[in-house]
């Protein structure tokens, strides 16, 4: 089986979110970056499990500049066989998807894995775009995946439940919680990752349709009211009359 896992780089979950004075850029000074949790914990691990049980290869792919190599190496340390970095700034979901699709179109992967979303842009866009560009089925928010070597049975998280479907042939999926259990890279994996191939591919020219003009922070908390546990009537009154939510 030939599997591709697309991994992205995101700020660590406790990172301080701050912007430059003109609010046009995210301040990365002192911010630690990690592999996007959905990509690492679920997409990559499930791909590795399939390889372990059915044979084949797992390639990790990132669209980004050389600073991302450390995150790509982590994918190799966790067990991917090789890696590809498409050497360009992932300006938008569209540009990222077009680069991935252009690379993947000749490679005939059986499955292309994505995370359900990045925790910085929260787009949930790239996977669906790649599926369309390659004219493949797309299973989003997959929390269970069984594969018998021919067809796949996937459970997708949908509002208030799950949908189980059967897909034959190659397809694209995005990974949600439940698809796999997070793994930790061991010393051997880390040592081996240094010798595994990381191929740098130059990007194709893509016009970027979307860009950020400015950032802002949400309105701050409007003051906390402490209510004594003996005084539940006051809470009910506040919710009913002031907040008008019940």
């Amino acid at each position: 089986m030939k599997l591709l896992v697309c991994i992205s780089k995101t700020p660590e979950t406790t990172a301080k979110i701050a912007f430059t004075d003109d609010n046009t850029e995210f301040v990365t000074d002192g911010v630690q970056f990690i592999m996007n949790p959905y990509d690492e914990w679920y997409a990559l691990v499930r791909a590795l499990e399939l390889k372990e049980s059915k044979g084949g290869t797992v390639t990790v792919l990132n669209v980004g500049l050389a600073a991302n190599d450390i995150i790509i190496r982590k994918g190799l340390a966790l067990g991917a066989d090789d890696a590809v970095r498409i050497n360009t700034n992932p300006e938008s979901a569209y540009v990222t998807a077009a680069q991935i699709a252009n690379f993947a179109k000749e490679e005939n992967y059986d499955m292309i894995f994505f995370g359900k979303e990045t925790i910085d842009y929260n787009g949930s866009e790239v996977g669906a775009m790649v599926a369309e560009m390659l004219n493949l089925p797309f299973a989003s928010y997959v929390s269970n995946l069984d594969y018998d070597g021919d067809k796949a049975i996937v459970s997708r998280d949908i509002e208030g439940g799950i949908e189980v479907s059967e897909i034959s042939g190659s397809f694209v999926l995005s990974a949600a919680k439940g698809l796999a259990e997070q793994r930790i890279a061991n010393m051997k994996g880390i040592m081996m990752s240094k010798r595994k191939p990381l191929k740098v591919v130059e990007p194709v020219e893509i016009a970027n349709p979307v860009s950020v003009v400015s950032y802002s922070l949400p309105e701050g908390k409007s003051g906390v009211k402490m209510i004594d546990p003996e005084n539940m009537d006051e809470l009910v009154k506040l919710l009913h009359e002031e907040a008008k939510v019940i």
Partner: protein
Amino acid sequence: MAVLVYAETQSNKIKKAALECVFYGKKIAEAEGTSCIALVLGNVENAGSLGEYGADRVIQISDETLDQFDGLVYTSVIGQVVENVGAKTIVLAHSSSGKSLLGRLSARLSAGSVSGVIAVPDFTNGFSVKKSVFSGKAIAEFFVNTEKRILSLSGNSFKPEKIGTTIDIESIEVTIPDSSVKVIEVKREEGTVPLPEAELVVSAGRGMKGPENWGIIEDLAEALGATTACSRPVADTGWRPHHEHVGQTGVAIRPNLYIAAGISGDIQQLAGVNNSKTIVVINKDPEAPFF
């Protein structure tokens, strides 16, 4: 030039998210001096009522293959309708099917897309629109420079109002492609509002001490007509199902009321819930991060 809104349905009924999208689509249409066209797919009851929430036209394509959601098939059909009516802005719900369609349509129509928008676009310098980023910790305004654009609207961002009347349903000819995905079954928890759509949410964390104590949480939720949620460690230890996990690595919600019992309110929890209009925290520690 028109605004096309794909109005999502479930079990033949128009979803609340669809009303929000139509109401939102109408606001864009008004700003651009054009019409708001709602599209429903499959067998749907009472589609004409979308006129009440702002649709100037309602188009329905009732082929039975469309009764089941299929991203490839729906994208092809919506793409054909976009061409047919000359739509420039396409609005979808930021739901599980809406998210799949957004990316696909963007690729198919070479249109810029912004997912999970929370405000009416600004037309002063072309077209820009806001969405929440960094899992609720910030807001970004995105500029879209393509002729067509596709937006998915975050749930509970707008309260749909009745601004029109029921209208007649039109139909148009489209070709429906074959699918390679076969839906085997759909399992839904009946009787509760799904978390992303819920206006009232009762959530609980490790402070509950164990799953045996969840009765009071469920009772409270039932009394309020609220949906239950939980913190991540609670889902990870199997006290509650994964789909209840809210936060940065779980479901992001924006209800009117979020009640958090025995949850400390760490940054990753807060990320997914801080867009709630009112938060009630039940905690014995007055220094808990929530405060």
